[in-house]
């Protein structure tokens, strides 16, 4: 079957989201840093909403241990996550402009690589999360930054919240449940946190930045 044209896809989105919001979503570009349980789900939510440009970044390959919560398929085991997710995103949103970087982000390469105005932090290790957040807040104060911290286990979904820490820095999660402490990561609760991050980003794009 032929896929719809760019114009048909846009019209279907504009009909659901409204022309004004869809224009903003189509013009938006978002960087997703880390393509695990948070990042793969965030990127898919943004692609489905019709975000015009996505920059997906990860250095890792798809592993069997990822399949409990990350948006990859068994036949993609061993592929770089950037390539595997690129294929999936293109099936969902064929006209989304997707840039992929198979690289480990660090203090030195972040300022030159992350040119988008909105950045999703979606790493899994606490010190890497802190590195990215500190680097952006210190060196790139004009960016909007949405980060996730605390989504392990099967505690109540309602403890996962979005907080605006400063004007351009939003933090999603319960803030406390560490993957090292108990049950580990379960798809449903990681999805709740990923959805918080994706929704915070869509609200920023829409200009709804007072509270998330």
């Amino acid at each position: 079957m032929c896929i719809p044209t760019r114009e048909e896809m846009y019209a279907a989105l504009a009909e659901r989201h409204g022309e004004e919001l869809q224009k903003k979503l189509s013009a938006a570009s978002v960087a997703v840093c880390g393509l695990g349980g948070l990042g793969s789900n965030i990127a898919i939510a943004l692609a489905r909403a019709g975000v015009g440009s996505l920059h997906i970044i990860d250095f890792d390959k798809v592993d069997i241990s990822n399949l409990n919560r990350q948006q990859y398929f068994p036949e993609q085991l061993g592929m770089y996550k950037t390539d595997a997710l690129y294929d999936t995103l293109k099936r969902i949103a064929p006209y989304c402009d997707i840039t992929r970087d198979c690289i480990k982000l660090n203090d030195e390469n972040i300022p030159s690589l992350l040119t988008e105005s909105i950045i999703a932090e979606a790493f899994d290790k606490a010190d890497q999360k802190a590195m990215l957040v500190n680097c952006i807040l210190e060196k790139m104060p004009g960016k909007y930054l949405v980060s996730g911290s605390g989504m392990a286990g099967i505690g109540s979904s309602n403890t996962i919240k979005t907080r605006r820490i400063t004007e351009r820095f939003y933090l999603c999660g319960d803030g406390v449940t560490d993957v090292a402490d108990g049950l580990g990561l379960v798809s449903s609760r990681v999805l709740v946190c990923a959805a918080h991050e994706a929704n915070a980003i869509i609200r920023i794009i829409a200009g709804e930045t007072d509270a998330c």
Partner: protein
Amino acid sequence: MLTINGKEYEFNGRTVSEVIAELGYNEQQIAVELNESIVPKAQYKSTVLYEGDHLEVVRFVGGG
């Protein structure tokens, strides 16, 4: 008195570095805002806290 994550403390005159150690945070897993501005990690040791300051320590935990 100064406020850290919404609670009041008697930490006037102490540095950010001393205070976060006393409260048990790992410096590698946090971001610190002082009166709504980021405190660069390199300045934790030299940033002194004063009466009325608002400190926000954002702690990151593993998982994603």
